[in-house]
């Protein structure tokens, strides 16, 4: 019998070979990565465009609050300049494209306009030659008036004499400060003269005669001869009113010595060589450069006291954010522990703990904040007592959230299994149940942040919490400082209000996005 090739019934033993001989058999790895809870949340969060934008804006605000003192502003937190208070935004870089010029639009009377233009004219006329025309003065670097509006006639009150005014004039508010009278020690005076020679920038200007032509001896900007505010010429020996025109030369009222040279300083008192005091008339813009080494530049302008608003806002934002994060972290901790104990043990422990939080939750927050400030702020400081107030009732929401989650998970099989294997209560709470509840709890924490920022700014706005100091402020304090004067200086209110609103909107959007992402029941709903 021939051996059949296809005889499968009797295969000899040696023909058998082990499959995968010498190899270990294991499960093959997944081709793609497993999608865990966090990963799934991240995937769904990414789809929410609004939340991504909000997260980016929050990041920008955080960076602004951290980097402003280092990069954006040249001014330290304590830097304050009373002459440049309430000034609008001015940036030398943005100025080139016509933004942030530090200008405002205003209406001037004829005399007021000449006084403002006179600053530029006077700045050119530092040697008292008296040859500078208004036209030349208008193109001066120190000329505050950038645009003269049309001359219109209005009647304010019926029957009164009609008034001529210049509408819509554009004025540079930093240059508007113009000239000031100051008193220097001789030492300082000599340093300024040296600096003038080095840089070619003029600080010291001739003093003004205190006579009938000087309208206001305290205002250093009336350097020309005036009668009731209008410039006059006395060439004919008799005062004659002049009107604004291009070829006009304002007649100066400078103090002069016997030879007719203008006098730049006057001895006002003081003892020896170094401490002798000199009264001088300075151009403040250049004096600022002398003091600081750079031209005035404030990206958001200056606040009501003369601090750099950008630095103040960055400080306020830093305080708000830090406070909010600290408060939510503490509330998270207390709330999680409290809620875990309530939810896990249940029964009479739950009943008693719930009654305690029931009572606390009904205490009006504003009353708590007020009482804590009144009692504690002098002992532990304003900010710690504010934090205490936030904590006293703030954790309750978190506790309720955690408690619900614990009620949901504590009856599940894996908890029973863990208990059967002898796990202690503490281990079951933190190792088994808590990680499952974490998503909901974290989301709750994010949503505490805008609430805290809002309450903090409200309390500091009302003045219940006093956060304003030389180095620190809050957005609420900035807003309340601006509350009575903002109609004249809108930027004082505008920038902090925008920053605060933006922060609130973004945190709410971001928090909602997180909440939806962490909510497994919404999985697949969008598709």
């Amino acid at each position, binding site marked *: 019998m021939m051996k059949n090739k296809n005889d499968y019934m009797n295969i000899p033993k040696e023909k058998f070979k082990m499959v995968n001989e010498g190899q270990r058999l294991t499960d093959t790895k997944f081709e793609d990565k497993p999608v865990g809870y966090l990963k799934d949340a991240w995937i769904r969060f990414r789809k929410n465009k*609004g939340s991504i934008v909000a997260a980016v804006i929050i990041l920008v605000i955080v960076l602004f609050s951290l980097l402003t003192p280092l990069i954006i502003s040249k001014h330290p937190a304590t830097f304050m300049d009373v002459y440049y208070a309430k000034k609008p935004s001015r940036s030398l870089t943005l100025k080139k494209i016509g933004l942030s010029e530090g200008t405002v639009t205003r209406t001037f009377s004829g005399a007021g306009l000449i006084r403002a233009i006179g600053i530029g004219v006077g700045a050119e006329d530092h040697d008292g030659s008296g040859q500078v025309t208004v036209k030349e003065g208008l193109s001066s670097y120190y000329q505050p008036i950038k645009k003269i509006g049309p001359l219109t006639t209005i009647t304010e009150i019926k029957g009164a004499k009609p008034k001529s005014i210049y509408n819509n004039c554009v004025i540079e508010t930093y240059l508007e400060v113009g000239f000031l009278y100051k008193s220097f020690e001789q030492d300082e005076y000599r340093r300024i003269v040296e600096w003038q020679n080095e840089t070619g920038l003029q600080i010291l200007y001739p003093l003004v005669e205190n006579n009938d032509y000087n309208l206001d001896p305290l205002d250093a900007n009336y350097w020309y001869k005036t009668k009731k505010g209008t410039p006059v010429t006395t060439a004919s020996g008799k005062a004659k009113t002049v009107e604004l025109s291009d070829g006009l030369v304002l007649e100066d009222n400078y103090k002069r010595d016997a030879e007719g040279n203008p006098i730049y300083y006057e001895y006002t008192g003081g003892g020896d060589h170094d401490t002798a005091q000199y009264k001088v008339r300075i151009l403040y813009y250049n004096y600022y450069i002398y003091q600081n080494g750079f031209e005035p530049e404030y990206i958001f302008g200056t606040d009501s006291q003369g601090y750099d608003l950008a630095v103040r806002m960055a400080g306020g934002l830093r305080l708000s954010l830090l406070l909010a994060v600290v408060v939510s972290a503490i509330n998270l901790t207390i709330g999680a522990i409290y809620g875990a104990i309530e939810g896990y043990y249940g029964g009479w422990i739950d009943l008693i703990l719930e009654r305690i939080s*029931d*009572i606390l939750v*009904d*205490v*009006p927050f*504003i*009353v708590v904040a*007020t*009482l804590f400030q*009144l*009692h504690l702020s002098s002992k532990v400081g304003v900010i710690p007592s504010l934090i205490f107030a936030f904590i006293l009732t703030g954790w309750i929401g978190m506790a309720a959230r955690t408690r619900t989650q614990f009620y949901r998970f504590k009856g599940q099989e894996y908890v029973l299994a863990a208990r059967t294997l002898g796990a202690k209560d503490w281990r079951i709470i933190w190792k088994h149940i808590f990680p499952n509840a974490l998503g909901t709890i974290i989301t709750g924490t994010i949503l505490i942040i*805008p609430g805290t920022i*809002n309450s903090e*700014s*409200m309390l500091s*706005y*009302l*003045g*219940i919490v006093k956060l304003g100091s030389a180095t620190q402020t809050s957005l609420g304090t900035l*807003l309340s400082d601006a*509350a009575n004067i*903002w*109609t004249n200086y*809108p930027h004082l*209110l505008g920038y902090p*209000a925008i920053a*605060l*609103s933006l922060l*609130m*909107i973004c*945190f*709410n*959007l971001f928090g*909602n996005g997180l909440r939806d992402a962490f909510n497994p029941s919404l999985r697949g709903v969008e598709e």
Partner: protein
Amino acid sequence: MTKYIIKRLLLMIFTFFVIMTMCFMLIRLLPRELPQDKNLQAVITARFEALGYNKPLLVQYGIYLRNIIMDWDFGTSWYIQFRVPAMEVLTSRLLPSVLVNLYSFILSVPLGILFGIYAAIKKNKWQDQFISTAVMIFVSVPSYVYAFLVQYIFYFKLDWLPLTMYSLADAGGSYWTQKMFVSMIMPILALSFGQIADLTRFTRAELTETLTSDYMLLARTKGLTRAQATSRHALKNAMVPILPRIIGGFIGILGGSIIIEQIFAIPGVGQLYMKSINLFDYDVFMCDTIFYTFIGLLAGIIGDLSYGFIDPRIRMGSKK
């Protein structure tokens, strides 16, 4: 139901008592500021002595409670209105607060519900997206930012409305005159934006949930039009959580808004609160605190109880 109501009321009274006790102790422990005027100082010190302010704290509290129960006496105002009972100072400021809040309430409830319904019906269309975005912004922005915005538009730019509320004398001696109402428009608007947005969001959320429920499908299968099914079934069910919220909010209008009253110079309860702190008028402060606590508790309890009245299916306090 009755048993549940009684239980809730008792708990409310207990909570109220505990909070009142805590606040009393904390307020009485504050150092008392005396005025500069020697005569006034003597009068007030003598009066404090007579009222037992130098006795132990618990005895003081006993006196305080006795005065409230026997004479309805919540202490005296010394600085805001000299020697006027604190309760009288408070009640005299109730009307402006309530009026401003009531007007804004009347404005925002219908608008909020309407926007909410519209957004829910147009869900995921551009109308809904527009309303939802606006709601997100309006809910987040603090109310005093609106106050400034409204002032900027209506006073600074348009010059239609007065910057702050008129005093009683300016407006003809009554809070009901037309002139007074015009001066109240700005605070009403400032308060309304947030309330409208809040209610819109809530209504939209509730209505979208009921719109997708099974009984809506049944109603449509029975032959009801979409409008009929929405108004008779979905809206009715969505109102169950919305109405208690509105009722709770209605009680809340008594409290006023401290910050809005401060900005618009409304002589209300909220402004009184700030004044009492700044002038150290602690009896008024205590009275205002009690008032706020009471309003908060009352709003909560009435909101909760109204659930049972609105929807008979909800059995309050019943066992699981």
